[in-house]
Structure formats: C-alpha cells, structure tokens
C-alpha cells in the first residue's frame, strides 16, 4: 500500500482496503441492498476472497469457526435489516465464547435512519448486549479509523465480536484514505502483565499445596497459552482438567489429564475439583455448567488462584483468594520462573486418591450393543483420524460425547458453541475451519435435530468444494432434551421426538455430496475409513444410533459437581 500519497476512495473501497491492510483472507457473507457498493468493490479485487453462504447465521458461524481454528479475526459481511437479525445468533455465539470477529453490517442511508425505511433495523441497539463493542459510522471520514479500532478491539484483551454498521450513503461517499498504524484509546488499554505481588502469593500457595488442581478454560486457547500450561503442569506434576471450551489446551492423552469437568465431566475431574486444597483456575469462569451450585462448591475449603484477562470474570460466581488479572502466557511465564527454583509438596497420596476415582471408569458404555452406540462412533472417529482431526460439533448429547471421547491433544482442534449452546453451529463452523486449514481433516459431529438448523450450508460446501465429513448421530430425538425429560420430567417426551426426518442420504446427494447410511456397529469403522479416504468429497454419514443412550456422568442442573448421576446407578 502507498502510505505516502493518500488516495481518495469511496467508503466501499475503504472497507476493502482496510480488510486488505488487516490481511483478511476470507469474508463470509451474503449480499443485499445496503451493501451493494461494498460487494461491487469486492468484485473488483482478488486479495480478499468472499465466501457466499446460504443464510447469514451461517456466515457468522463460518467466520467464527475460521477464527477458532486459526487464531485470526473472523470477518462476516451482511446487509441491513434481516441480514443483521439473521446474523444475531452467530454474533451472540461468538460473544459468549469470546471469539475475535468483525461483523460488517450494511445500514439504510443516513437520511433514512429512524424513518422505518425498507430493511432498516437498529443494528447497534439490537446487537449491543451481544458484542464486545459496536459502532455506527455516519461519516466516511471516520470509516478507516473505525475499521482499525474494530479489529484492534476484537482481538486484544478478552476477545469478542465487534459490529461495524455502515449506512449505504457512507459506502458511496469519498474521502482521503489513511489507515492508522496504531490505535490509541484512553478508555481501552488491556493489561498484559500480572501483578508481581499476586504472582508471588500464588506461587506460595502452589508450593504449599498437598491436593493441588489445575482447572483451565477457553482463555488458555484464546491466548495461545497451551505450551506454557503444559510446562507448568509437567513441572509441578499437578493434575489438570479442561472445561468444554478448554479442551486441547492440555493433551488429553497425558496421564496428568483428568478429562473434562462439569455437568458431563469425568468423575475424577469433578471429585478432584471439589476436594483439592489449592485450585489454580486459568482462563475459566466457574460457570453454572462447570461447578454447578456455588454453595455446594464452597462447602469444601480450598484456596483459589484465578488468572484471567477479564476482571469481571473473577469472583463473579465463586470468591477467589488470589486474583491475577493479566494475559495468561505472561502470567504463566512469571509463575514458571518462580516455580522452577522451588520444590512443590509430595502429592503421591493425592494422586493415589485420584487414581481411585479414575478407577470408576465413569465413561464406560456397552461395547457389545447390537445397536450403534454414539460413544462408539466417536471412539472410532478418533482412531480413524488418529486424533488429528479438527472436530466441530452442534449442541446436545453428541456434543458431550464428542467432548468426552475424542482425545484432543492440541488446541484449536475442538470447535463448539460452549456458552450460548447454539444448535446449527457445527456445519457452518466446519466450513470456516476447512477454509482456514486447507487440506486438514475436518469432521462435523452433529445430530439429526441440530443439523437441520443450518442444513442449507451443504450448498455452500458444494460451491467451495469443502470436503467436510459430517457424522450425523441420528437417534430421532433431541437427545439432550429427551434425557432431561427422562430424568426430571417423568419420561414425558414432550415434543422432543424428531418425526418425518428426511432421508439424509438422498438429501446429501441432492446437494451433490455423498451420503452413507450406517446402521450396524460392525459397519461404523469401515464407513469412517472410506469417508475419510475421500479427500476431495464431503461425505454425510447418517449413523442410526441407540435412541435411549444417555450422557454420563451427569450433574443435574443446580446440584453440586460431585452429585453426579453415574451410568451404573440407573
């Protein structure tokens, strides 16, 4: 870019130039009236590639999956009014999981704002509670700096989606283009280093711990701290658990890993959480699906160290003894420096206790079933892909089984909607993952209910030749809803049965993909091997699975994390 001589550009050109300056590779979007000038400029260049989705929700989920699997900022582009309202679910999904994203939305011309114009909605108002920040750009002269700010805010501090709303006349108006090199904001300066005194206090606690526990969440993945976490856990010999959002931050195949914790966490992880004497929480937020009832959690005395970039995540649900606000890799480096010169306690007795808990084998299921067990499909998926796949999921039982049975050894390989729990996320997210990781193996684990919520994106997959493997765990139920109804609503399966399902094989074929029906356990592995051997084809595998299978262990909503329902108790 020529930074010396400023060009006079239209707002639409400025948008594209800013995307180029930010090295944006893909924009996921859908055109419409208010963004026609922007699409016109997209057409005239080939640096920024556009991916045409079939529904705006798909655009935002795809940008989200792109970001989660690559660390880059995801970018979506939608038109005003319904374009925005369709995108809302995607934006809220990204917000709940702190995904860096810039969503560019068209708006009616400035002179029409507030007049109930065609395809007008109050985008800034509608998206305000589900974004890290948003702005309406009313003057083309503010556009370049707004774009710069949007990317800066999205990816720094605790990341999140930023919406930038641009009226149509602003995209047509012209001004001199300068892309700022830096952003200086007096109101926004995320910290990096943790407070040294707090770090020392934390080290002191860790050195005294007889029953230590390391509990980490999505923050470790978002801040690229997996290496530092592994160093810390290896150095100390402490046990480690990851949340649903944090899977892959610590290698699941390592002995020190206790599995996921929480509502569907392992027995050993939940027991160790409850009974530890020092808890090191990193980039996690003690949410209701993780620690259940905070009063129950507080019954066991323990000292808690909490490292997080966001002060509001600290002492929100659980009182913390040593809060450390900072960028996780920086704080872990400081911790490691001090820990390397010290000796931790002998925790052999604690490990013996943990191994006893592990002996429960809480994830066991009937391997001799004549009906396909969903857990079996995930285990085979793990084997066939050698644990190297990127796995996206939708929301429900299949999501939990994927989280429990696919052993993620690397960060950014497990892509799911943890916070908002958005059905329909898996397939479009997989598109973003595949585009960010060309040539990589991408599996979308879904269910017959979730997949139908963004099914239209099969068409996008065809257009862009995305060889995703869709594993549809088809039990003809909204399985998690059915499970709750079985446990807590007297087996009254109100509206959770999926009747009149399509023939998924024909459906996949209708979109130009390969569809395979798998009905017998003995066919599972072969079908998976065949599918994953097809490097250039999307294969939709429809597994007819056990309708009555439940996810265990389970902590009922509002209960303490050790109040687990285990499979044998039923």
């Amino acid at each position: 870019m020529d930074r010396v001589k400023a060009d006079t550009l239209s707002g639409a050109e400025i948008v594209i130039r800013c995307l180029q300056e930010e090295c944006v590779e893909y924009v996921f979007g859908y055109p419409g009236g208010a963004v026609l000038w922007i699409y016109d400029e997209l057409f005239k260049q080939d640096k920024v590639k556009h991916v045409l989705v079939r529904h705006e929700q798909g655009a935002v989920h795809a940008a989200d999956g792109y970001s989660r699997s690559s660390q880059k900022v995801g970018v979506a582009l939608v038109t005003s009014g319904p374009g925005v309202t369709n995108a809302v679910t995607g934006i809220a999904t990204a917000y709940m999981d702190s995904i860096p994203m810039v969503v560019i939305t068209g708006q009616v011309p400035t002179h029409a704002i507030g007049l109930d114009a065609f395809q007008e909605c109050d985008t800034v108002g509608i998206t305000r509670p589900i974004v890290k920040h948003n702005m309406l750009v009313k003057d083309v002269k503010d556009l370049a700096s707004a774009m710069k700010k949007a990317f800066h805010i999205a990816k720094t501090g605790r990341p999140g989606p930023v919406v930038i709303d641009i009226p149509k006349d602003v995209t047509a108006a012209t001004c001199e283009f300068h892309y700022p090199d830096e952003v200086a904001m007096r109101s926004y300066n995320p910290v990096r280093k943790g407070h040294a005194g707090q770090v020392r206090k934390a080290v002191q606690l860790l050195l005294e711990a007889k029953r230590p526990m390391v509990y980490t969440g999505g923050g470790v993945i978002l801040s690229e701290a997996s290496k530092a976490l592994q160093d810390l856990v290896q150095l100390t010999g402490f046990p480690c658990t990851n949340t649903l959002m944090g899977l892959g931050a610590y290698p699941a195949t390592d002995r020190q890993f206790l599995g996921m914790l929480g509502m569907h966490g392992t027995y050993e992880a939940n027991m160790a959480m409850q009974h530890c004497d020092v808890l090191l929480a990193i980039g996690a937020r003690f949410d209701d699906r993780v620690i259940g009832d905070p009063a129950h959690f507080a019954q066991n005395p323990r000292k808690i160290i909490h490292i997080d970039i966001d002060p509001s995540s600290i002492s929100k649900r659980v009182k913390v003894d040593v809060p450390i606000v900072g960028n996780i890799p920086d704080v872990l480096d400081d911790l490691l420096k001090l820990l390397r010169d010290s000796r931790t306690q002998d925790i052999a007795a604690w490990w013996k206790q943990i191994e006893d808990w592990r002996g429960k084998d809480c994830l066991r299921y009937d391997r001799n079933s004549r009906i396909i067990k969903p857990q079996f499909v995930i285990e085979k998926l793990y084997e066939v892909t050698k644990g190297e796949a990127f796995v996206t999921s939708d929301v429900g039982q299949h999501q939990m089984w994927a989280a429990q049975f696919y052993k993620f050894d690397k960060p950014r390989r497990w892509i799911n909607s943890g916070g908002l729990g958005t059905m329909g996320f898996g397939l479009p997210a997989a598109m973003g993952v595949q585009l960010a990781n060309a040539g990589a193996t991408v599996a979308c684990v879904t269910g017959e209910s979730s997949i139908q919520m963004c099914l239209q994106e099969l068409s996008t997959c065809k257009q862009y030749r995305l060889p995703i493997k869709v594993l549809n765990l088809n039990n003809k139920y909204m399985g998690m809803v059915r499970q709750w109804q079985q446990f807590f609503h007297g087996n009254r399966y109100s509206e959770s049965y999926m009747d009149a399902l399509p023939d998924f094989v024909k459906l996949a074929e209708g979109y130009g993909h390969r569809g395979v029906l798998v009905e017998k356990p003995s066919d599972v592995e072969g079908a998976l091997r065949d599918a994953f051997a097809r490097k250039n084809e999307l294969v939709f595998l429809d597994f007819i699975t056990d309708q009555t299978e439940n996810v265990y262990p389970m902590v009922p909503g509002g209960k303490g994390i050790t109040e687990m329902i285990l499979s044998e108790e039923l």
Partner: protein
Amino acid sequence: MSRHIISVLVENEAGALSRIAGLFSARGYNIESLTVAPTEDASMSRMTIVTTGSEDVVEQITKQLNKLIEVVKVIDLSEAEHIERELMLIKVRAGQREREDMKRMADIFRGRIIDVSDNTYTIELTGDGAKLDAFIRSLDQGAIIETVRTGASGIGRGNRILRV
C-alpha cells in the same frame, strides 16, 4: 444490600448512555438514579449512578462498567468521604393565604423561589436526597403541584479525584 454512588467518566459518544443503561437492565442491577452531562472537556461525560446491591453485586457493577469500551474510569464514591447534591424544582400552591408560609418554608430549607404566578411558586432546592425528601414531607401534600428532581451528582472530598 446498601446504597452506592458510582461515578463514571465516559467518552461523550452517541450510544454510550444506552450502553450503560442497557448493562444495568441486562444484568439485573438496580438504578435509583442516573445523571449525565459533559465535563469541562467536552469529549467526555461524567455520570453519577445511584444503585443498591450487595458488595459482590456492586463489585461486579464496577467491573462490568469498566469493561465497556467507552468507559474511561469508574469509582465507587461511597467507599470514602464524598459529597452528593441533587437539584429539585417544585411547584407549589401559593394563593393569598399560603404565600407567607410557603416563602418561610423555602427560606428555612435555603430554597429559592424562581418563578411566581398568581397562585403558584416554583421553588429551587439543592441538597442531598434526604434534605429534598424532608422538604417535601414538611409541605402540606395538597400544596404540591409538580416536582422534578435531577437525581444525585457526587464528587469525592479533598484529594479524592476522578479525572483522566
């Protein structure tokens, strides 16, 4: 549950007020009153929010406010010595019979009569909330025609300063 008075310096940008008000409603925090106007630096506004909540909730309120991109600084004034003032304009019946009494009452409370008609006075009164409440209580309730209050503005005492 206790009363807190929170001062916020915020970028004077469109939408900042609704962002803050929206935060309170979305997270279920109370707002007793909220006042806002630009500071000596017109690019920045200062807001005074009176809220009630437990210590934990108020801690979350200040953290969540700080998290908003446009918020520059937040302090909980009620953590230390501070002054708060509220302005009230109150229109009262003041016919021939009540005029003298009403004037005297306004004087006692150091209020000023700023508008007079044949049968009304409009009194301007400044003070903390309790003083304004006391004034209202001391009047014959039938004499009150209209009241408008600004909500509290607050500032720290002495060297306790909130600025950029």
